[in-house]
């Protein structure tokens, strides 16, 4: 994709809104997250902030910690009280965005817990309930970042109808991306965010109208993206669930896809377009998402 004109100056108020959009945090569930054995690989600080790296392996290794309580959360972090291997009282500071999906579905990813014997059936059941849930666009960090990048680029570029794409496929993929529910709802929130300049609000509303008017390949049908099992389970893969179980997950999702023959082509097309978009915007996890989609759609 090639921008037609140099980037316009960034509208900081507008940009801040996208940055500060509230991440979902369920502190009620977090408060109940006590005494789970965590396996962590990053430097640890004492509660007073003093570093004691000399006590820990210099290379990244798993350190067994016992979470004893939820200490609180801030703009960018979620903090837990923990007990170290020698019974030390410590705190761990984790990225807030990582807790959005897991606190929404109330499930720890296997990467965080030493309890590998989690209940996959329960997790699959919860993911089934996520079908059609518009929160998915916000709680999966990678999806949220993707839509944020699309909106950001739409703002920096000239009017959408002046953009030229480098291939027919890119045109289709980007048309799907800008019409995805996540992009539209981000623009909707931008248009109603307090303190935003009137011209930015007008831009957001105008862009929504413009996007709704563009032609899109009927196979994509972005309005049913949230019904797409590949999108739902792909979100879980991006959030580091099922690290060692992708074959089973693929087979499970495949059976869901084949149960909906009318939407099958659309679901597959959406997933491949999404994989392309994630790759285009260099999203972390893009490769694992692509592999999951390819493994699931293989032979369909």
């Amino acid at each position, binding site marked *: 994709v090639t921008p037609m004109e140099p980037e316009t100056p960034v509208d900081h108020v507008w940009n801040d809104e996208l940055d*500060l959009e*509230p*991440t979902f945090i369920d502190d009620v569930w977090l408060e109940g997250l006590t005494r789970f054995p965590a396996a962590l690989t990053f430097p640890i600080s004492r509660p007073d902030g003093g570093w004691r790296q000399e006590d820990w392996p210099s290379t990244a290794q798993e350190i067994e910690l016992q979470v004893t309580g939820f200490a609180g959360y*801030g703009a960018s972090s979620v903090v837990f009280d923990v007990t170290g291997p020698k019974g030390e009282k410590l705190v761990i500071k984790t990225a807030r965005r990582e807790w959005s999906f897991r606190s929404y579905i109330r499930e720890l990813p296997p990467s965080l817990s030493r309890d590998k014997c989690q209940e996959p059936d329960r997790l699959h059941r919860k993911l089934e309930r996520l079908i*059609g849930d518009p929160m998915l666009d916000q709680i999966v960090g990678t999806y949220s970042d993707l839509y944020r990048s699309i909106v950001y680029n739409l703002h920096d570029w000239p009017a959408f109808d002046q953009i030229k794409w480098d291939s027919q496929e890119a045109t289709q993929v980007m048309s799907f991306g800008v019409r995805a529910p996540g992009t539209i709802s981000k623009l909707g929130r931008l248009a109603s965010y307090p303190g935003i300049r009137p011209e930015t609000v007008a831009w957001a509303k105008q862009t929504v109208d413009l996007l709704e008017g563009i032609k899109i390949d009927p196979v994509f049908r972005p309005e049913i993206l949230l019904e797409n099992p590949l999108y739902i389970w792909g979100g879980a893969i991006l959030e580091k669930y099922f690290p060692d179980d992708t074959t089973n997950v693929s087979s499970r999702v495949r059976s869901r896809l084949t149960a909906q023959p009318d939407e099958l082509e659309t679901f597959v097309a959406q997933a491949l377009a999404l994989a392309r978009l994630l790759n285009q915007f260099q999203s972390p996890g893009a490769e694992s998402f692509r592999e999951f989609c390819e493994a699931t759609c293989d032979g369909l």
Partner: protein
Amino acid sequence: VVKFYGNKLTANVCIAVCSSTNAVSISSARMMNAFRSHVRQQSRLLALARRGAKEQFCLNSESRQFIRNRLAVLQPPTLHSPAVAHFFRISWVCESLRLHVEQTFAARFRMKQWDAFISHASEDKDVVVDLAEALRGAGLKIWLDQQELRLGDSLREKIDEGLADSRFGIVVLSPSFLAKQWPKRELNGLMAVEESGRKVILPVWHKIDRETLLAYSPILADRLASDTGRGIPSVAADIIQVIIDPRSGSPAVESPSLARRFIEFLNSAPETDAIRKFLSAQAAIGERAVDGTLSHCAAQLGQTILDLCFLRIEGTTGTHKWLIVQLDSPSQHPFPNRSEAAASIRQKVADLEALRRWVSTNIQTARETIDQFNPSFLGFVVAGRRSMLAPGDVDVLRRYNEELFGITLRTYDWLVEAAVSLS
């Protein structure tokens, strides 16, 4: 002329002022006996006045009228001779009596601060802390600090110290308690302690039986007591029953705390509309529970009526976190068939899920009703009481909550605990 002095003890004395100056000698003991019954008669009025003053900063018209009516029918103490009656009317005698009554009965008749203190051996601290928590959970004011008994303490002094500010004294009788080797006189006298003719000591047996106790004090052994062997909740229930008896004169009855009033309100099986009004008027309860500020009450968003909507502004970013509390009946068992939540609860959960979806796709419309609203809210559905839940139900509740997204089912005890912490 009758004067009522609000919450002071002087309210107990009706001062009859008369112009007569005839002086007749009278035994002060006889005079005081007459006044003692008079003072008792009016102690209820004193409590009413206190309650009125506490809740509304002045007596409302209903309370004032009630007090006027009661005062109208109250007769001055009946004295034996016309001369004495005449003497009673003399103002200076009345005034001196007022002072005398104030000094003599002030400590005894003034409103106690605590419903009960718990006197216990320091070795029994664990069980006593649990008992105190159970009693506080019922909205009672329990004094625990400095009531640990150690070797060398005087039992009677400790009891008197506790009773100075508490209506009842709960004494935990255990092997550790008896090992303090209290003088037999103090042990036997313990149960005889009373105040204005009312028993004040509530014995609790802990890891002790009647035969063991008999060896120390037959009087103690014969007194009805609650036994921790039946479980702390059972002991607490026995004690609560005594303390909240309308005739007990305890602060929980005469001047109930917010928590106590909330519990009594819930016990009256109110409609959810009434609960919403109560919690709206007493916003601090919900605010303490959710750690937010009450923002909207009965607001409509989409098809959903939000019973109570709280706002928490995150300090570091200034972003808005919304917390919605939906009320179901306190008499509704959350899991009537032991596996599935009650239909009304499932409906409220479904309403909140639908609301989240509606707000996600209609954010501008939502923000026209509630400024800066967003779909990342946390929802709470409140139903039933913890006492309804069998041990297995607690697991069912935990599993049910584990399956919800951003919504938590709570019993009303969650709000009661918030009210207790405020009290």
